[in-house]
């Protein structure tokens, strides 16, 4: 009971600053200190959100963007996870691929946008490719790091107690690598949104980024601000889900023990 209360109040504390800023912003707009052509009042943004929701345009664009983000994440994340596991478990695989991967990693994936447009035009593949590429590296590196940091003493214990390779992986290596995998997941989610925003802003015919660019054409600052706020909220939502999963699966970890 009191534990729930402290959790609620702790969460409330986290939201105090954003809510306070929005209040200050609203008051400044009402007093005319902020011209609406620079920054419309929060109430105007909410008004725009309402209009776009009732016309169906906003839900559709959110849906399109979310689908792109998640499918790109699924593709890039699973390739990153697979290669991270392979290179963490097999030194042959690592020697074969790690040099190449490290070279590719040092190319900012957003620098590929011109090439990607040439390859795929402004179709879905372009966005999918960029998101997948952006998500790949944090997942790959953290998976590799997680497997590297498995306590060799525990692996030896597993062998001494007759675990075969599969059991050893499932019961010792994977759980030990899990905290690091979650770091990669949360980092990748951030990159996922970032990449998608940039890709949709530059080349798209639907989605939140496209909506913002269209609004800029028509000088609808309120819609531009709305898109930005939505990116923040969607990013926060993704991170919260990841943290919830993290807390549920790392209950044994002293750092995640629920107070």
């Amino acid at each position: 009971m009191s534990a729930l209360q402290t959790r609620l109040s702790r969460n409330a504390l986290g939201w105090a600053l954003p809510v306070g800023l929005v209040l200050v912003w609203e008051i400044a707009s009402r007093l005319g200190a902020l011209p609406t052509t620079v920054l419309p009042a929060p109430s105007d943004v909410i008004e725009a959100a309402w209009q776009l929701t009732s016309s169906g345009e906003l839900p559709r664009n959110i849906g399109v963007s979310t689908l792109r983000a998640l499918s790109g994440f699924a593709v890039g994340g699973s390739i990153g996870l697979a290669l991270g596991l392979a290179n963490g478990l097999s030194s042959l695989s690592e020697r074969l691929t790690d040099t190449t991967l490290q070279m590719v990693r040092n190319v900012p994936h957003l620098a590929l946008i011109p090439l990607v447009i040439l390859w795929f035009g402004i179709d879905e593949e372009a966005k999918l490719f960029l998101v997948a590429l952006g998500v790949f590296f944090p997942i790959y590196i953290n998976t590799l790091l997680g497997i590297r940091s498995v306590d060799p003493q525990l692996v030896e214990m597993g062998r001494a107690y007759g675990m075969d390779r599969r059991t050893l992986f499932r019961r010792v290596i994977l759980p030990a690598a899990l905290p690091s995998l979650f770091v990669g997941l949360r980092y990748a989610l951030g990159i996922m949104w970032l990449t998608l925003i940039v890709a949709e802003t530059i080349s798209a015919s639907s989605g939140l980024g496209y909506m913002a660019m269209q609004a800029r054409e028509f000088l609808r600052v309120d819609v531009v601000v709305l898109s930005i706020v939505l990116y923040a909220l969607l990013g926060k939502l993704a991170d919260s889900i990841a943290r919830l999963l993290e807390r549920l699966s790392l209950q044994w970890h002293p750092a995640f023990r629920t107070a």
Partner: protein
Amino acid sequence: MSDTVLHRAELGLDQASTQEIEARTSSSPPAWPAPGLAVTVRGLGKSFGAKRVLEGVDLEVQAGQFVAVIGKSGCGKSTLLRLVVGLETPSEGHLALGDGDTQHAGAARIMFQEPRLLPWARVLANVEVGLDRRMPAQERHQQALTALHEVGLDDRAGEWPAVLSGGQKQRVALARALVSRPRLLALDEPLGALDALTRIDMQRLIERVWRDQGFTAILVTHDVGEAVALADRVVVIDGGRIALDIVVDSPRPRHRGDARLAELEGRIIDHLFNDQGAAI
């Protein structure tokens, strides 16, 4: 020596009667007899690269015997133990457990200096690591609980290892080693990291389960007092060879500070720090 043998025989009877009681109450799994495994080592040598850690080791451990292996750090005593349980392969020589055909799972178990519990598994699941995974879950839980009961931690079965004290963790590790009723228990300085009182507690616990279950025990330690208090026989390793092999025939239960044990302890320490080794 003969005292000890007689004592063990009596205990064997004890074990049979407790088994009957358990069968009658029928809640516990059967405590099948786990006679010790003899260990035969001939001309055993181990090198890591150019470094020779052990050479020409001959050792004959009788079934059910409690042998302590002591020596200065780096003398190869841990390597000997790891060779016995198959964590290392010999570079030369011959090593056999029992009559040589005892490769079945769980016959030989090792307890390390660190508890090496899986932090992401509850205490009960950690003990179950010692059991065959093909065993039905219900039976696994039962046997793990029985093993936890033996080390006095059955009330902590549902805890995470992180909340246990160092001594408790090591007791869980002991339960994990014992749950498969091993015929040989290898102990690699398992009490080295514990405080003095917890240590004495653990020594008594290890002695008790060894007497109850009759497995062969090989204890590697750097504590000479611990060696003479627990073992039937103390083997001193120096420079990769067996330098001394003494029978400790004081009757059990032994008392700390016993004059005969203290005298023996003194002799071993003298030997360890006397390079000629001819004084004995």
